[in-house]
């Protein structure tokens, strides 16, 4: 508990210090609970997620960083490795390939990489995985694009505080 708190505090300070160094990621610690974080990530360019801003929620276990944080998408996203309803993410570094040397920042980077390179063979979203596996890249892209527009694009006038 003490070790994880100390480590998260270090990450917090690092995030404050490095603010803006990585323009694609904005990590925000909950005001009252250092084990709850959210992040806003930009959809990578040349993907159907481009132009979208996606919100992630982090729940951090007491044994962190020996055990990985639990991360899920709060923003709807059509992606083979993200559960469409719950936002749960299938990513090896969040499971058996976790290393305690990873940080919340590097987890965000890994998730952005996953958005660029979906793994249709371990799908959490079968519809999306099947489209890709059957070679229907256009079908996948247009679905993903549609949901990006619907859920991840800042609407005019609303929620302007969430834009990066």
């Amino acid at each position, binding site marked *: 508990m003490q070790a994880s708190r100390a*480590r998260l505090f*270090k990450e917090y300070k690092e995030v404050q210090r490095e603010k803006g160094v990585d323009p694609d990621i904005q990590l925000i610690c909950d005001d009252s609970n250092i084990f709850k974080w959210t992040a806003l990530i930009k959809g990578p360019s040349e993907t159907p997620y481009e132009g979208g801003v996606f919100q992630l929620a982090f729940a951090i276990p007491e*044994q962190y*960083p020996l055990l990985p944080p639990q991360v899920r998408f709060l923003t709807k996203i059509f992606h083979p490795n993200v559960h469409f309803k719950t936002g749960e993410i299938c990513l090896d570094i969040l499971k058996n*390939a976790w*290393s*305690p*040397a990873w940080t919340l920042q590097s987890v965000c980077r890994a998730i952005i990489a996953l958005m660029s390179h979906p793994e249709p063979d371990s799908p959490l979203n079968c519809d999306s995985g099947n489209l890709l596996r059957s070679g229907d890249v256009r079908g996948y892209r247009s679905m993903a694009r549609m949901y990006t527009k619907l859920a991840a694009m800042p609407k005019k006038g609303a929620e302007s505080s969430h834009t990066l």
Partner: protein
Amino acid sequence: MDSEDDMHDADDLDSLDDQFYSGYAALGSDDGDEYDFVDNVSDGAEESTSHRQQQNYTILSDADIRLRQEEDISRISTVLSILRSEACILLRHYNWSVSRVHDEWFANEDHVRKVVGLLENSSEMQRTRELTCGICFENYPRDRMTSAACGHPFCHTCWRGYISTSISDGPGCLMLRCPDPSCGAAVGQDMIDLLATHEDKEKYSRYLLRSYIEDNRKTKWCPAPGCEFAVEYIIGSGSFDVCCNCSYGFCWNCTEEAHRPVDCDTVAKWILKNSAESENMNWILANSKPCPKCKRPIEKNQGCMHITCTPPCKFEFCWLCLGSWSEHGERTGGFYACNRYDAAKQEGAYDESERRREMAKNSLERYTHYYERWATNQSSRQKALSDLHSMQNEKFLLFQLEKLSDQQSQPESQLKFIIEAWLQIVECRRVLKWTYAYGFYLPEHEHAKRQFFEYLQGEAESGLERLHQCAEKELQIYLDAQIPMNDFNDFRTKLAGLTSVTRNYFENLVRALETGLKDVGSSNNQATCSKSSSSKSLGSKAKGGKSKATGNSSKSAGPSRSMDDSNLWSCDHCTYANPKSTRTCQMCEHHR
């Protein structure tokens, strides 16, 4: 993939040879002079020893395993000039095959190093006074940090936590790498011993030991509960049956209880079937049945199938078929037929429990028949096993020894024949049990095969009955009373003879069933149907034996046991079943 001995052929079963016939002829010998075969005992015993396979497995104790593992590790460490912990990582990666490690290493050392994470040139941690731990991000003096061969520094608290998390996650801890995600340098036992808690070190070395057995394709743990022995098996060496030092016999291939002569697939099917039918079968396992004569419930508390009802009834009957014992086995020389499933007999004639009558389905009846006999032999075996244990453990034999040596100065070795008889009973019950699974899956339409099989099984059942009865009941007479030396010597000769003959018979039976009764014409429907008139006498005899039970019917059974469906002929004189190719009886030299 990993296959230094895959080229061996697993199938080197002995062929069905003449010994088979000599074996069962002895049991099938005429009544009256049933101890004739004792003369041949020495012969039989020699044959059976020469036949016994050289043991194709080794039992390993905890100490043996540690020693071997240590030897393998040092050998690799010496030959490749690498650290002990590195040799250990290599061996684990190649499933503890020393030769495989050699081959791979000398074929492409760089590749192997990369795959397992052994760096050729280890880097030291940076030479600064303070370093930052890659996990907690705190700064520590250099001497309070440790790294793997890669030089990535982590503080001791973080190392301990990292190692502990991995160990509590399972045997994957044996493949531990540097925590730096980009690194991959192996973390071996030397670092565990340096950094982990005492408890974790123990756990790690247990995983390492388990891996030595579980990841090596030549070794397995004995599946008996609580047993800590392992078995090393010579792959491709034939019979899968192994017997652990804890006395549990099991199949090396499927790790079920030893099941020769039935193959692993049949066993798996049978076990599945049993669990599917277990609700229907529970009542069968109850150890009590009504006496067929007086209807009082009788409990089976002895190993053999010969049951005597309590006074005043004293009716003697067979536990398996509930038929009168006087129609069974050696007394009448009749065909022992309670092993045979006979669909007709299920109808009406039997006054068995209501439950049985409710079983309308023939298939269930059929299964019930085989299951009941399988289960009864199983419990008979358990009983014999516990009898044997109590004889070996308790003061039983010591007491007997005293008594006997007082009476007749018998040295201890002279009583070994009793233990041997019981060991044989236990083994035979096991074989017999599995012959019922064999019978259940023997195709119904292969009449000749079925008949021959049932004949062999029947003879096995009755032969074993004789041995079991002799060891269980006749022995008791000697324990209860003061018997002259001569009588005891007679008893010894009889029991030792029965043991030897039964052993031979069962060894041959196992061999015959394993080769699929290939000497018997299998699917010649035309021939078998036309023979059904002659073979019917077998069936009707068995039936008649139960309902009418006249002495005549069992006498007429003599010639009727001729197996003329197959390529055997039955001797008129001694009833021995001879191969068609012979003109004179192999047993008594009577001409055809």
